Structures are given as C-alpha cells and as structure tokens.
C-alpha cells in the first residue's frame, strides 16, 4: 500500500482558557495500512501533543462518541479510514454542540436534554409482575422498534441540519426518529394528542425544512427521511396539521 505522509490540520481551542484564541495546528503522520482517524489521532496525542482533546470510547462505530467534521463532513472518526481521504485532512469539532475543547463536544448533554423534552421512555400504567409471562409482541414490531432505536446519538444529523444550526432547541432528525421509536411501540400508552404536544412544535416536526441533509450522513444508515414522513403522516392522520 502507498505509504503517504498525511497532514492533519486540527482545530485547537480551550473554552476554559478564552485568552488563547482558537487556532489550527498541523501534524504530520506516516500512514499505515488500515489506519483510521482514531489510530492517527491517538498517535498524534501520544507522540506530538499530549494535551489535545477528542473523544473515543468503542472505536467500533457503536457508541457515538467520536463524530467530528472531517474535511467539512460530519462523520465518525473511528469509522473513517485515512486511505479514503486526501493527504491533507482538516478536523473540526461538530457545530451546534457545546465545545468542551479542541475536537471534543458535549453531544451527551444535548441528547440527554432531548430525551427529557421528548419524554423518551415507555409510558405505561401497568406494573411489572415478575410471576407473569411477558406480554406477547409480533416479531416484526420488535424489529421495527429496533430499527428506530439503532440511533447512537452521534450528532452527525444534527450538525448537518440547517435548522438545528440556526434554531437552538430544534430536535432534528434524531429527535423525530426518537419520537417515532415510541409511537410504533405498542407498550407506550401515549395518545395522539399527547404525542402532538411533544412533536407538534417549532422544535419538533414543524421546524424541519425537509432538505434531507441529515438522511445520507447517518453512520447507522437510519431511514431518517422515512421516519420524518411517518411522524408527519401519523399526525395528519390524527387530524393534526404538521
């Protein structure tokens, strides 16, 4: 394989030291076979600048920690092979989210807030009885719920969303997908009206301009466009205008 020398241009800023203005810093890295941005960034931290901040946990596109702008495009750094990138690679933190430092942003807090606002839990009056068999569910329904639940809260769809970039508190595709996950779950007892209270606002389905920047950026390949349409249809079907 070609052994290129890569140049990483990396955004540096520590919001806790605002006296040092943001700047771009560049590092050279010898490319190795099968190298990902995860491997390269750790190499930079361990050999060049031990203070640089970024987030990885699973390094296997499962946990959603490592989204950043790689040459302008929001994607998971652990799942990005350097060989699919040009020699010059620019890394920036995701927009919209609060900056923790350098490439690290607070997607965790953002998504927690989203879960609270959309009341993302099963609403039921039934109490659990350990002596009783589980309620039956059609396997296809289980698979459909799982399909929506696969979101890893990485924030790529939010960072790429024009509305989310200008309107604080817009939930974006991840939020609408989240609501869809509970709407299709027969265990959730919320009525159409209760859902409308959650979703029928500027923050929810109204804010979406339908330009679909989110749809092809989702690393989990969630059918976001379909979920947006599903939620709209469902609301219309219940007589609510979205």
């Amino acid at each position, binding site marked *: 394989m070609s052994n290129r020398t890569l140049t990483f241009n990396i955004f540096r800023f520590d919001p806790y030291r605002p006296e040092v203005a943001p700047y771009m810093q560049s590092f050279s890295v010898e490319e190795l076979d099968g190298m990902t941005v995860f491997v390269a960034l750790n190499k930079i931290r361990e050999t060049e600048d031990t203070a640089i901040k970024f987030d990885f946990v699973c*390094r296997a596109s499962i*946990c959603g920690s490592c989204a950043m702008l790689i040459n302008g495009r929001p994607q998971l750094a652990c799942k990005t092979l350097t060989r699919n990138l040009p020699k010059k690679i620019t890394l920036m933190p995701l927009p919209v989210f609060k900056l923790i430092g350098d490439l690290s942003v607070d997607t965790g*807090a953002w998504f927690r807030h989203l879960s*609270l606002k959309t009341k993302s839990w099963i609403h039921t009056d039934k109490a659990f009885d350990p002596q009783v068999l589980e309620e*039956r569910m059609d396997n296809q329904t289980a698979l459909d719920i799982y399909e929506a639940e696969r979101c890893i809260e990485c924030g790529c769809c939010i960072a790429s969303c024009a509305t989310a970039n200008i309107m604080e508190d817009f939930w974006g595709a991840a939020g609408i997908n989240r609501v869809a996950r509970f709407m299709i779950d027969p265990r959730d007892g919320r009525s159409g009206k209760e859902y409308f209270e959650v979703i029928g606002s500027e923050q929810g389905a109204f804010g979406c301009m339908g330009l679909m920047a989110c749809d092809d950026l989702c690393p989990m390949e969630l059918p976001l466009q379909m979920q947006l349409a599903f939620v709209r249809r469902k609301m219309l079907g219940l007589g609510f205008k979205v």
Partner: protein
Amino acid sequence: MNSNNTHITDVLIIGAGLAGERVAIEVANHGLKSIILSLIPPRRSHSTAAQGGMQAALGNCAMGQGDSPDIHFQDTVKGSDWGCDQEVARLFCDTAPSAVRQMSHWGVPWNRVVAGKKRLSTGQVVNDDPEYDGLISARDFGGTAKWRTCFTADGTGHTLQYTMDSLVIKLGITMHDRMEAVRLIHDGDHCMGAIVRCLRTGELHTYLAKSTVLATGGYGRLYGASTNAIINEGSGMSLALETGIVPLGNMEAVQFHPTGMVPVWILITEGARGDGGYLLDKNRHRFMPDYEPGKKELASRDVVARRMMQHIRQGYGVDSAYGQHLWLDIRHLGEKHINTNLREIANICRSFAGIDPAKDLIPVRPTQHYSMGGVRTNIDGAAYGLKGLFACGEAACWDLHGFNRLGGNSLAETIVAGLIIGKKIAEYTSGAAQKYTYQIIKDHHANIDQKIKDLISGKDGQENVYALRDQMEQNLMEYVGIFRTAAELQKAVDNLKDIYYRSLKIGLRSDGSGANPELSFALRFPGMVRLALCIAYGALERTESRGSHYREDYPRRDDQNWLNRTLAYWPAGADLPELKYEPVKITEIQPDDRGYGEASVRS
C-alpha cells in the same frame, strides 16, 4: 477544597453502564437518593457494545424447549471450571428470567418467537410451537446446552442500555457524566464516598454518601490487544485495591477471544468460523486440523485461541506494523453468503480495516475479551474489607464466572446483580448514617491534589506515561496471555515491578492544565500497573490450569490444591500484591470433567 464542589447523597454509584444504572433504579424504587458518575455520557458505556445477547432460561423458542434455571446453572458451573460460587450462580440463574421480562416491560424490543417450521444453518429443521408465538426468543451461544441467549437483532447491549437509561431519566436520577472517581474516601473501616476529577474542567470534587458502589466495568485495556472499549482500564478495581483493605478476586482469570481484527481489535464473531471459515498462517497453510483433527476451527474458544498462539510462537505468524497475526479466510464461502449471512463481519472488515473479506484475508489474533476477576464481594455485593462499599457487574468478582465466563452471562449478570445487589444496598443504606469527618476528607483530597501538582512539576521524575503503558501492555500480552509458564510469568512480574516503580516517577509532557488527557491517564496509570501485577503474580502462583488460566507447565486442573479463589491485597508501600486464598462454595455439583478442552490434554 471548594465547598461548591461537595455533593452529598445516599448512594454514590460509580459507573453508568448496565450494572450501575440497574442499581440506581433499584435504590430509587426504595426511595433513596443517588448520584451516578461516569467517565462518559452513560449511553456510550461499554455495555452498548455487546451485540450477542444475554442468557436467561425462558425456554420459549424451539431449540430452547425444556430449558430451566437448573440447566443454566449446570452450564454456568461447568463453564467456570468449578471456580464459581454456586450459591451466587443459583441465585443468578433463578432470577435471570424475570429480569429479562422486566427489561421487556421497560421497553427492550427483544426478538420474538415466530411460530412455524424453519431450517437452521446446520440443515436441521425445527418447528416453533404457536403456543409460544410472540414470546421472547433466544439464539445459540457457545457452551450452552439449550438456546438460551435472548437478543435484539445485532444490538442487545445497545437496547438494554438505552432502555435502562430511559428509566434513569424518567425517575430523575442525578447523572454526572465526564466525572472520574480518582480515590475512595475511607477511614480503614467505612467507605464514605470518593474524590472525583471533572473531565470537563479538571477540578476536583468531593462526593459523600452512606454507601458507594463500584460499577466501573472491566480492565481489558491493560492488554495491548483487547476487544474492550478504550475506557475499560479497570479504574474501579484500582480504587478498591488502593485502599489496602479491599481484595480483588481471581485477577489471573482473563478470557481471550480467538479472533480480534488487527489493528483495532474489533471482535470478529464466532459466526465466521461457524459458517466454515479457516485459519491460515504466514504460508497460507490451514493449521487448525494439525492440532485439533476433530473439531478444527470449531473447537471451543479457549482452545482455538491457545492453538493460534502456539502456532504464532512456532514462527508461523504474519509480521505487520501492529505485531504478529494470523489470517481468517472466509473467501471460499462466496460473496453472496458473506454479504448476507455474515454481513456484520463484512461491514467491520470494510469500515475498520479497509478490506473486502470476499477477496481478502482478514488479519486476526487472539485478543483479551473479558475480565472474570474484580472487586471481591459477598453474595449481597458488599466488598470485603470496607463497610458501605459495594461492587457490581464486570468490575466485581461476585463470582458467577469462576475461571471462565459463558458468553451471554455477563450482560445477564449486570442486570440480575444490579437488581439483587441494588436491593441489598437499599437495605444497608436505609439503616446507615453519613459517617465522614472533615479531616478524613481533607487528607484524601490533599493526596490527589499533591499527586497532580507533582505530575505537573515533574518533581518525581520525567517518565513518559505512554511509553510505560506500551511496556506494560507488551509484558501482559507476551508473558501473561493465553499460554503461561513459570519462567515467563516470573519475567512479567519482574518487568512489571520495574514499570511500577517507574510509574511513580511520571512527569507530564504537557502543562496538565484543565481537563488535560495526559494528566488523567498519568493519575490512573500506577493503579493499572498494580492490577497488571495482580494478574501476573496470581497467575504465577496458581500452579494448575483452570478455565481460561492455562499453565503449560501445569496443564491439569488440580482440585486437591487449587479448588479455591485468589484474593489479592495491596499493602501500603508494597510492590507486589499479597495473595490469600479462600475456598470455593460448592453447594450442588461436585467438580467433574468440563466436557471441552484440548484434544491432547484432558484430565
């Protein structure tokens, strides 16, 4: 010390994976207050990475018919090579079915039984009875007599963690993420909470509680090649060991998975070999039939892993920039099969190594996978040695797994133990009082504060923490891996001791200000070397083979001398753990043949 940075609660839960969150829900249901701490947002905990599933004897699917907690119990005890606590295993197996159903009640979309005939990949035809249609289904997993592993497609850990966390949010349980516990506060008798460093700002905080729970997960990342998330550095175990009073159990029991993919050690599931994949060496020779003419690539996990290492050691490994490896070959299964039945594996190969398994060989080697050892607790989850300290999940040695964990039993452990131990913690906490004194808090706080200052000033030396880490990893991989001998283990112990002394002389490269990542790692590192020494020294002293602990110089299990559990203590100022042993509780099944092992050595 800043009083704004002091937090007081009933139960302090360190760790927001499945185990920690399950405990939090239980204590909240008992009307107690708690705070959960996590290095990262809770939904990014390593639990989400478990894809396979969790075991519970529901017996709903056709291949699970006739299953019962009794059979689950037998599988668990056999799997552990009689090293587990049978009372714990019994309690666990009996509780697992209702714990799975409860997760369903809370929202996990478990895959369900679909009535009717179907053909399995083995060719066998099974018929799912309409009576069970729509109940929770199960899949096959190694080492189980019945299909017992409940799952949600390829994301069991993910759906469990998201559901568990949804409840934590619903119940309004306080969550402080990006917070790292760096020291337990105790007076040698009671645990009172922890000193915690904020990973956003670098500030130190004090958390005070009537009881403290370690649910910090495993220590896979002590090894250079591990399937674990990169945050799994055993920090909860270090915190406990550092007290000098709380022992760690069976640290030498480390599970390896045969096929972690080079270079990022993502797990390639058994499915690849199950469907007919071969293992090849540097000469493209298929070597498994030479060692295991009967089962070949399908021998049990630990056997395949051992044979692979044996072959590498004989000089047949493939050299690479990331160390020696072997090849997994699934090309002959054909593009169609690979892209449908083995799609998950194909995706991993493409995304993380840039190879196409329909055309290319997959570089693999045995990789650290699970830590059976951990903070030793009794059946109630109470740590030995300190009142008010509990442990749960992979961080603990509750001792469900003995010397080998069954796949699917660890996810189940997190939620079953979380439930059972959560209840016990609630009972304990309801009757306990806050027990701290200002002086004790101040002493513990000052200890960390001083360490930070010394690391920044370089007062103790200029050792590079990343270089030392490489050496620790290398020693564990090379000498405390799958094959163990007295000579090599001794080498590891000697080298690790040296690394330990050097770890006390780390100086930072950077200025260490704020939430500096080098400082975080430098604070953690000496504790990691102590854990490495517990593993290496425990393995050296245990002169038998049991479960995943395999001594070439003592290839047989020795129930006469070693039917016991290792307890490792770290006395103040020591450079080696002090090892003690306690008997294993055997209540139902006496030690017997495990029924799987190498073709050549069977006792």
